């Protein structure tokens, strides 16, 4: 044990992992294409212990990454080789729940779904529902601004976080946001949410709770082409209805979900559209009639309506298990996450199908159709030489397609490790430089989640001149 590590052991007598058998399982998150062995894992139990860990990293100039349940699909919680993992799983308590204010204050290791379970007795719930919600932590949701099926109506995590107590990369504590919806001054919290762990570690998060919808109406429509389903989405929105969620699954995804959970989907469908209306009972009832007409004229050959809460849960269980279930169809796959404008959905899907044929790799599609958030899953076999590289190339083409259609390279999974090379496709060097400067203002050594989000990844010497400065375009005092 090095003197530095011994120092860390004194700080974390019961929360330090450093043996090979303890470290190996922390080598990757849900993106196993990348792995790196950390120097150690610490398991803080309080805000003060997180501060101590960060200060230790500063002192020894060792990079670190905060980790929750390790469900990131972009490699966001991948350790830095030789760095420290700050695992927040022991900070998993609900600190306060105020049904009158409709807020909950939780520690970062608290699980997303548990928020809704704790709020249920008061008729409240936490709206953002990533498919990983039974597993993923609020800290991770915050860092990656997680979405989910129901973000169509309610927005992403950023719309549901009111405040956060955070440890900045220099070990200082800051309180961002407030318990009310109206804050004063710059939206620091807005900057922090979705910063992928680059700007610090949240140790307390105040969440907004919503009243549980009084009624749901969940429709399952089967189509014989993917385009028809895509067009139906545009038709629903054009009709003025705002559903809670609109999801599409293609035939491969249907096959996988059926094998995993037996959701009872029509197996022969080429595409399945799930539309869920939610709200006050009379409103939902009126919308349901309207929706029925729209769906009927969209060319669906079979339409089912969930008749009970159990049937509704079954429909969602299939959808939410779909990513992992694809593991049944293929030994390896890449989960992609890109966004296109809703009106371009049909075009994007047709193009993805062409790309799939050209590369000779199967692509399954499961996605949040309502907000144009595509999730193509590229199936490959890592044991066939060259197939991983082909799959990665195909994934890249899909992202470029999203940008070309006016969308983005990530909807909700984040840039992490996986997409850092695509950042320049979306952002100009000036944009990237601005982001880097913000980061360096808080973390000149780039210790916090080093190597993620920015192309290249390795830190640059702090405070170099801006390229525009170098070119003489701008001048600083």
């Amino acid at each position: 044990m090095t003197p530095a590590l011994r120092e860390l052991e004194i700080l974390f007598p019961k929360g330090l992992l450093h043996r090979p058998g303890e470290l190996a399982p922390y080598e990757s998150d849900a993106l196993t294409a990348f792995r790196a062995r950390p120097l150690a894992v610490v398991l803080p139990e309080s805000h003060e212990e997180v501060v101590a860990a960060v200060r230790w990293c500063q002192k020894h100039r060792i990079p670190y990454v905060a980790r929750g349940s390790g469900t990131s699909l972009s490699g966001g919680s991948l350790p830095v080789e030789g760095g420290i993992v700050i695992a927040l799983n022991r900070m998993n308590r609900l600190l306060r729940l105020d049904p009158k204010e409709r807020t909950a204050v939780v520690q970062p290791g608290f699980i997303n779904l548990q928020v809704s379970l704790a709020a249920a007795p008061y008729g409240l719930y936490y709206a953002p529902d990533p498919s990983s919600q039974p597993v993923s932590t609020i800290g991770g949701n915050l860092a990656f601004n997680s979405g989910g099926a129901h973000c169509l109506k309610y927005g992403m995590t950023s719309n549901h976080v009111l405040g956060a107590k955070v440890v900045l990369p220099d070990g200082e504590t800051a309180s961002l946001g407030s318990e009310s919806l109206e804050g004063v001054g710059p939206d620091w919290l807005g900057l922090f949410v979705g910063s992928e762990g680059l700007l610090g570690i949240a140790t307390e998060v105040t969440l907004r709770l919503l009243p549980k919808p009084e009624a749901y109406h969940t429709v399952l429509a089967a189509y014989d082409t993917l385009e028809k389903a895509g067009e139906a989405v545009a038709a629903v929105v054009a009709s003025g209805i705002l559903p809670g969620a609109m999801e599409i699954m293609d035939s491969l995804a249907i096959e996988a979900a059926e094998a995993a959970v037996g959701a009872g989907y029509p197996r022969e469908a080429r595409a399945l559209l799930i539309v869920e209306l939610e709200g006050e009972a009379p409103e939902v009832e009126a919308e349901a009639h309207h929706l029925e007409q729209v769906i009927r004229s969209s060319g669906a050959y079979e339409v089912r309506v969930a008749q009970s809460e159990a049937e509704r849960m079954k429909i969602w269980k299939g959808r939410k298990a779909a990513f992992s279930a694809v593991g049944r169809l293929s030994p390896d796959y890449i989960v992609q996450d890109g966004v296109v404008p809703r009106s371009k959905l049909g075009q994007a899907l047709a193009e993805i199908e062409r790309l799939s044929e050209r590369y000779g790799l199967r692509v399954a599609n499961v996605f949040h159709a309502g907000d144009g958030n595509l999730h193509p899953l590229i199936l490959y076999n890592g044991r066939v030489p060259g197939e991983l590289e082909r799959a990665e190339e195909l994934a890249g083409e899909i992202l470029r397609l999203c940008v070309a259609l006016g969308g983005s390279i990530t909807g909700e999974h984040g840039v992490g490790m996986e997409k850092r090379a695509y950042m320049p496709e979306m952002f100009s060097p000036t944009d990237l430089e601005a982001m880097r400067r913000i980061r360096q203002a808080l973390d000149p050594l780039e210790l916090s989640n080093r190597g993620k989000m920015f192309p290249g990844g390795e830190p640059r010497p702090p405070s170099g001149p801006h390229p525009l400065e170098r070119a003489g375009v701008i001048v600083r005092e």
Partner: protein
Amino acid sequence: MQHRIDPEKVGPQGEVMAHAIEACVHCGFCLPACPTYQVLGEEMDSPRGRIFLMKEVLEGSLSLEEAQPYIDKCLGCLGCVTACPSGVPYGELITSFRAYSEPKRRRPLFQKAFRMGLQETLPYPARFRAAARLGRLARPLKPLLPSFLRAPLELLPAELPPPEPLPERVAAEGERRARVAFLAGCAQQVLQPGFNRAALRVLARNGVEVVIPKGQVCCGALALHTGERERALRLARQNLRAFSGDYDAILTNAAGCGSGLKEYPLLFRGEAEEEEARALAQRVKDIAVFLVELGLREVPPLKEPLRVAYHDACHLAHAQGVRAEPRALLRSIPGVELVEIPEGELCCGSAGTYNLEQPQIAATLGERKARNILATGAQVVVTGNIGCHTQIQNHLRKLGQNLPVLHTVELLDKAYAGQL
């Protein structure tokens, strides 16, 4: 997940293990379903973490000693199998890995002796009875004993019921509707002989002729799940012979034994009897499943309504996928109000000999289960497995509660007899 395992090098179960590791996509959906992850909160003690560790050991990049503590802590409850969207056959992986690693590891002498002692007594009712008597005599010495000997003493009941040899055959009452073979189970014959008596009475009352084949022995699950493959094979071979007759089904009333018999095809993989093992496994049914398929003869109503909590034994719910049938049986008793136990999918900590080998985690889980049961306000707890029965009763008593714990068929038997 990609791996560099050479199945040839690893032995007969190499394929099985490599396949399971390939199927894992590391998504983490197993984490909330894993009792040790719930208690310890560290990645090594999660199914995903263990799969990673086993992979590293099989690839040769991690020593067995590094991985072993975490593999040992796995209860084998298979809660992760239910939760896994990707269909990882985790049970086959952990069982095969334990068989692979056991001969390779060095255990301290006392541990070896203790494990050997368990394997040589628990599966044999006469020996277990003798050991239990000895254990009761040793109870006053408990504070002086090493900790690994204290756990078994705590689990022993104060009074053992007298032994009751089972008949070789029980005739059906009324019209005969089926003829089945019955596995009597080993530990349960000593600890709760009433389970088998109740099962035989309920079966007879439902027109089922029951044969209890001579020459049957412990199913071998205890040995198989602790890596003692050779011992398990020896026992299983005797059962293949004993149950070779022509029956409509082979019934068990212990979840662990039922899933043990269903694991014979895995156990006999690469052996001469593989086909025979598969044929036997296909005929094995838990008694609850069999009764539901047969259709119960009418159960008289209870004198007073009874609030019943049903506890899912892991080896019924997770290993065999049997959840609906025991509940259906209980619901068919007029007057029973069935309630669900919070965190019902979480193991009670019994897990074969786990509560003897890892008493601390087992006790944490046992207490958690007991508290969840009490929260339902049930008047009776019902389960389909002897291990769960002992563990739950023990932990309810520790909390000062005397809630009766019954086997599903016991409740049914009492209802038929008009005793409730």
